[in-house]
């Protein structure tokens, strides 16, 4: 049985923790709003890009001159996994669910005898993955110093990926991130970005396009840019998801702390009352004995 003083201390410490989690929840809520509007503002560009790319790509027959970013290298031996996670923890299962998806993917590929290379964007994913894939991780991209995610960050990562592709370092690239559905639902997603996946269906087949300069040249500039856009979008979605996950995790933590405080206060009051009763009985029985 803990003493009254112990109980008092414990209640005080839980209360302090609750204050912290409450504050973190409110900070996450404010950041979420910003991240969410950034993700929404970026959506038209990415959607338009997909339509434009679909328009051109549907008119191109895959041949030896087709850019390799679209047609692939003709092999799928070496896979590059780009795993985007957060830089900070305390956001529920956010980081671990992305890492788990990437890990399962990597294990499956390795079981098939393929070579796997991993680029980690964000420290937390690196921390989780390096235990098992220390040899496979080729780079850690740290975005901790970045306050506001911009197109430059997406571009920076895309340039690295492109340089690796040009050097023939991989055949297929897959991007792992968390898609933002709502504050309580973030969906870990794997998206293949090299060779580019074209959404068909949005194509206006009857429109005959003039191309200026020619089709092939537009495609060669469009494809790398598409890569940048996809990565940029993933980063933004991830940022919004992270804040959403942190918000609900901290909300849970605050609620748990509240419950704990209630339970401990109850125990504290009970044992205090028990002590008073005991003292009274002692006094009364002492008086009766006289």
């Amino acid at each position: 049985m803990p003493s009254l003083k112990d109980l008092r201390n414990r209640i005080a410490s839980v209360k302090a923790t609750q204050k912290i989690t409450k504050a973190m929840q409110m900070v996450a809520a404010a950041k979420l709003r910003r991240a969410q509007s950034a993700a929404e503002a970026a959506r038209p560009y990415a959607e338009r890009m997909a339509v434009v790319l679909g328009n051109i790509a549907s008119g191109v027959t895959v041949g030896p001159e087709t850019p390799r970013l679209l047609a692939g290298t003709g092999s799928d031996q070496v896979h590059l996994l780009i795993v985007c996670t957060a830089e900070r923890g305390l956001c529920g299962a956010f980081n671990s669910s992305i890492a788990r998806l990437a890990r399962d993917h990597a294990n499956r590929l390795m079981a098939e005898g393929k070579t796997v290379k991993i680029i980690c964007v964000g420290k937390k994913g690196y921390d989780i993955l390096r235990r098992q894939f220390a040899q496979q991780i080729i780079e850690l991209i740290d975005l901790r110093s970045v306050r506001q995610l911009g197109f430059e960050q997406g571009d920076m990562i895309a340039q690295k990926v492109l340089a690796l592709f040009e050097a023939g370092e991989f055949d297929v690239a897959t991007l792992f991130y968390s898609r933002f559905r709502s504050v309580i639902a973030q969906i870990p997603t794997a998206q293949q970005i090299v060779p580019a996946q074209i959404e068909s269906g949005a194509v206006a087949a009857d429109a005959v396009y003039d191309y200026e300069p020619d089709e092939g040249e537009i495609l060669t500039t469009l494809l790398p840019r598409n890569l940048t856009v996809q990565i940029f979008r993933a980063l933004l979605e991830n940022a919004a998801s992270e804040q959403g996950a942190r918000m609900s995790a901290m909300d849970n933590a605050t609620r748990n702390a509240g419950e704990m405080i209630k339970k401990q206060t109850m125990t504290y009051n009970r044992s205090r009352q028990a002590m008073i009763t005991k003292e009274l009985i002692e006094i009364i029985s002492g008086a009766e004995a006289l």
Partner: protein
Amino acid sequence: MATFTFELVSPERTLYSGAVDAVILPATEGDMTVLAGHAPTMTTLKIGFLVVTNTPGNGRRILVRGGFADISPNGLTVLAERALPEEELTQEILDHEILQAEMHYDATTDVTIKHAAEATVAQLREAKAALNF
């Protein structure tokens, strides 16, 4: 005058969306004016001013850096890698970009990259001259 839908989007935000009379595009193969009913065309853009006219005799200039214009029967969509309206543009921004392009030029030995950087500097200078800085 007949109007058509025009959308200008950069990766970070949508800058313009609405019906316009005419848009002048800085296409890589020369400036072109898009009016309603233009033939479907896809073109790449260089650095330069895009001029939006929504009422006759009244234009709005927006500096775009690289991107695509997609002229379809439904209207014109410009995907600019970077876009800055004239109001937000200052001499410092332009000077800074020129400096960066020049540094880029000096830093490489690759002829094609040197060529591209040279073109960037020239186009930025042109933009600067157009603004009378």
